[in-house]
């Protein structure tokens, strides 16, 4: 009994800690223009590659730009990519899975065949190909990532619907003559939200990882002077080139990526234990 409550208490504190970090990263990203100490385009020709100091908390890069400012704006890029992709994949995948599971029969069979084929594709490569078509900017990357990652939601949603269809309250709603639309949206959807929220939480860090990886190897967001923000992956690539003499330039973006992905993953684990105890 005591051991059990202790583990759940420590699980809760992990949930709260990771949730707080996630909240801070999101807030910093969206408030970047107001809290950044320097302007995003500001160059200081006399202060190239400076190490961290009171005036430049994270030092400056090879063009004399304040790294802390660039990291803040980069948070906006990462969070937009993460949340945007997750929402696109959620909408496409969940509605697809809902329809497949709810219709059942041949429809279900055919629709899940398509999902199976998507599952067999090398995700990252298809993502790269799609990003070539939709353009190497945030919008294009969002669409490309969303189109790659919707299948996960489709599988989860369909499996959940198949289970929920057997519930007695669904049967009674059917017996009372509720429309199919009403049964699906009012009775089934709310009951399958837990696993979908968990999937959503996990798909955010994988989108951030995919975007920063592509930007690091130079085939992601192709806009190093954007006034809207540069990807952490691009910042890390800049730092990687100067790593031998100026390791701070890569250290801060790398830490930002790691901490963000880690806290989303820990948050996802916590939410899974909380909302979806079966999958543990």
């Amino acid at each position, binding site marked *: 009994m005591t051991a059990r409550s202790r583990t759940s208490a420590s699980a809760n504190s992990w949930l709260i800690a990771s949730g707080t970090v996630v909240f801070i990263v999101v807030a910093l990203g969206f408030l970047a223009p107001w809290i950044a100490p320097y302007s995003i385009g500001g160059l200081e020709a006399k202060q190239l590659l400076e190490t961290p100091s009171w005036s430049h908390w994270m030092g400056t890069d090879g063009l004399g730009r304040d790294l802390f400012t660039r990291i803040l704006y980069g948070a906006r890029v990462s969070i937009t990519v993460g949340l945007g992709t997750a929402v696109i994949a959620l909408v496409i995948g969940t509605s697809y899975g809902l329809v497949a599971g709810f219709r059942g029969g041949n429809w279900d069979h055919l629709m899940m065949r398509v999902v*199976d*084929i998507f599952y*067999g*594709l*090398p*995700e*990252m*490569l*298809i993502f*790269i*190909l*799609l990003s*070539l*078509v939709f*353009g190497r900017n945030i919008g294009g990357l969002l669409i490309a990532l969303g189109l790659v990652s919707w299948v996960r939601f489709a599988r989860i949603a369909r499996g959940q619907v198949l289970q929920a269809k057997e519930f007695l309250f669904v049967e009674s709603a059917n017996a009372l003559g509720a429309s199919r639309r009403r049964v699906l949206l009012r009775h089934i959807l709310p009951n399958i939200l837990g696993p979908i929220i968990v999937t959503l939480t996990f798909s955010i*860090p994988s989108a951030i*990882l995919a975007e*920063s*990886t592509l930007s*690091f*190897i*130079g*085939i992601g967001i192709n806009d190093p002077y954007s006034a809207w923000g540069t990807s952490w*992956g691009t910042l*890390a690539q800049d730092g*990687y080139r100067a*790593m*031998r003499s100026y*390791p701070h330039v*890569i250290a801060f973006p*790398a830490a930002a*990526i*790691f901490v963000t*992905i*880690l806290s989303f*993953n*820990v948050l996802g*684990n916590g939410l899974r234990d909380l909302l979806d105890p079966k999958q543990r």
Partner: protein
Amino acid sequence: MIPILLKRVVHGVLVLWVVATLTFLLLRLAPGGPFDSERKLPPEVLANLEAKYHLDQPILNQYLLYLSGIARGDFGPSYKYLDRGVTRIIAETLPTSALLGGLAFAFAILSAFPVGLLAAYYRGSFIDRLCLLVATLGISLPNFILGALLIWAVALQLGWLQAGRWDDWSSAILPTITLGAAPAAYLAALLRSSLIETFNEDFVRTARAKGLKESLVVMKHALAHSLIPILTVMGPLAAALLTGSFVVEYVFAIPGMGRFFISAVTDRDYPLIMGVTLVYTLLLVCANLVVDMLYGYADPRIRAQS
């Protein structure tokens, strides 16, 4: 077993066809052509180039030409490397990538098994919590960051190894660790939870009750049973190693297929992009096929079904 296998092969061919068609269409849709350069080419030169690569023909013809080429193992000419065809580039670079992937796979298995076993056996202990912590960190650490970190610490600061070379066995150490770390962490965590579940099963209790040596209980009965969930993730794991390899090849400047893929993307060298994508897909399909077969072999219930 045979009908299931046949079904899987058909599925694999279907996946390959979908990827071939998809890459073909996507790259035709992509803005910008392979011969767009800063200085505009004279129209006659452009026309000749397009004729040489069949780009002047109707799109359906191009598609059929492309498919029949693939069937013969010919991925066409590279737009960038004029002296070599895509097939030759792949044949030259694939062994390097395969070696790296194989080493990383071996590293992942060899480090995940002892760690997962220890953590599960001493569940809740300090070792267990340490393993869980390392696994969580390992899953969240992108491999380009790990690679850069290893180069900085081991090669630049300590000077134990050299980075950016690919000539003897010592140059493979850091890339192998970089590529294998995340799969190792993932496998260890999975093996741990699978083993913990198995330890509670009746047959483990029976094995202990009849006085079997503890090492035999763990190694033979429990471990064999826990392997099944491990096998199911081998497919996605192979995919992670494949796609991870081009990041690692980039970070460590290894002359493998992935690095050519990256430069092909920047150069819009369409045949090379399509060729590498297809080879990656083929490898993935084969990996999944092998996993399915092993899965059927490992689980008697599945063997009985067919």
